């Protein structure tokens, strides 16, 4: 084969080359954020940025450390996480169940999909006044908001994922003697899984957003409450720190989903390799 003769001339094999070039490129990408951070710190220290409006990053970090040490951060974090989790489970379960019914059964499609399509046009965060009237200003409001936020992306992606399954694969499964339930398990579910994961990631993003809004309505605990309370006492550092916690939570949940996705969808790696 001629390719084996020319390969050594080209140098290192592709995987090693890729690994080597990825290191520096990642490092380069840190330069501009770090520069911004340094500029921010300098501007705050020199008084260019008033401390009451934008506290220095070091001050925010200090505040974060203080809140972590005295335990109040964990208390609020746990409450926020609980609301997010309950809302996500309720909204997510409902979304997947309804989307599966709509995508698999004609009667489901005719009854479920039209109202969902209409409801999608409502900005769910605009429902806050109505939700306050319906469920009050307690935990139910926060959980309903998260559930609503998570519902739509998961519904639409699950629906599309099931509908987009190659019918030829379903046919092939039929000729292998698979009954309806087996086809659901071996063809439909794994085929819809990539879309389901995408929907889950979007749902979690929407869920956090809803939580931020929900926790600013008469909450007694939670990261949002922490921020609202700090605003009243003009503790800008706490407000900024709360924002960073929200961002960190979003990043963390997204990373976890991506890891789960990579593990579950290992077959797609083979697809990308070819």
């Amino acid at each position: 084969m001629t390719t084996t003769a020319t390969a050594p001339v080209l140098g290192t094999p592709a995987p090693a080359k890729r690994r080597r070039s990825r290191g520096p490129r990642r490092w380069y990408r840190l330069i501009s954020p770090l520069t911004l951070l340094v500029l921010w710190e300098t501007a705050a220290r020199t008084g260019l940025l008033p401390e009451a409006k934008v506290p220095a990053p070091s001050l925010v970090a200090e505040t974060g450390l203080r809140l972590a040490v005295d335990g109040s951060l964990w208390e609020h974090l746990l409450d926020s996480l609980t609301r997010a989790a309950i809302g996500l489970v309720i909204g997510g379960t409902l979304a997947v169940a309804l989307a599966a019914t709509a995508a698999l059964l004609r009667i489901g499609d005719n009854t479920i999909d039209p109202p969902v399509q209409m409801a999608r046009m409502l900005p769910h965060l605009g429902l806050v006044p109505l939700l306050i009237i319906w469920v009050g200003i307690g935990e139910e409001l926060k959980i309903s908001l998260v559930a609503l936020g998570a519902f739509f992306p998961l519904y639409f992606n699950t629906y599309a994922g099931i509908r987009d399954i190659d019918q030829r694969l379903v046919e092939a499964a039929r000729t292998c003697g698979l009954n309806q339930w087996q086809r659901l398990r071996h063809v439909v579910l794994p085929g819809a899984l990539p879309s389901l994961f995408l929907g889950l990631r979007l749902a979690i993003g929407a869920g956090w957003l809803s939580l931020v809004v929900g926790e600013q309505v008469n909450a007694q605990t939670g990261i949002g409450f922490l921020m609202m309370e700090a605003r009243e006492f003009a503790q800008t550092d706490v407000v900024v720190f709360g924002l960073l916690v929200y961002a960190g939570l979003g990043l963390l949940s997204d990373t976890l989903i991506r890891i789960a996705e990579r593990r579950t969808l290992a077959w797609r790696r083979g697809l990308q390799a070819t």
Partner: protein
Amino acid sequence: MATRPTGDLIVEVTGLRRAFGDTTVLDGADLTVRRGEVVALLGGSGSGKSTLLRALAGLDADATGHITVPAHYGVVFQEHRLLPWKRVADNVALGLTGADPRGRALAALTEVGLGDRGGAWPAELSGGQAQRVAVARALVREPELLLLDEPFGALDALTRLRMQRLLVRLRERHGFAALLVTHDVDEALLLADRALVLEGGRIAEEIPIGLPKPRHQDDPGFGGLRRHLLDRLGVPVV
């Protein structure tokens, strides 16, 4: 409706009809396949070859007429139709019941020359390999009948020749009957005991292929049959 065969005829189709809207594709087609016989189904594009095969495979609920097919049959499509999320061996073992499905799947893979690729993902296979897996998936069900819908049509010429030989070998060993839908006259003449020409929604002509096996394109009699079939399909040899 489908019933189970008795006696020597393994496939019996009478009065098969199928229309798509106003277009009648099958208009009372009749055909039979004997136990262990390979029948090629030829016809121009859109003549209803695949429609007929799909009706036999039980994939077309709207086809009417009487269809008798054996309980154990396998289908190989033009595309491999392997589930991309299942490893090769699991694809072959899909829906298998009885003892040791995985062992039987690996044995079938070995028969098509892919005994070592059971752990691969379908996406990692070449077109010819994937199609061989599809053949193994049909074969592992110990079919009395194989329904082949242009199974080698999407492969390159060399791979196609290898696959045709593989099919001949597998048939000698397992003795299944086969209905081979193809537009390739040479393929029909190499593999089949009988060729049927589908035209106007019915079997318009039946041509026994009495050439001795193993066959080759150079065999005497091959050219004559080839010319006749091509002529019949509307592509006269000039």
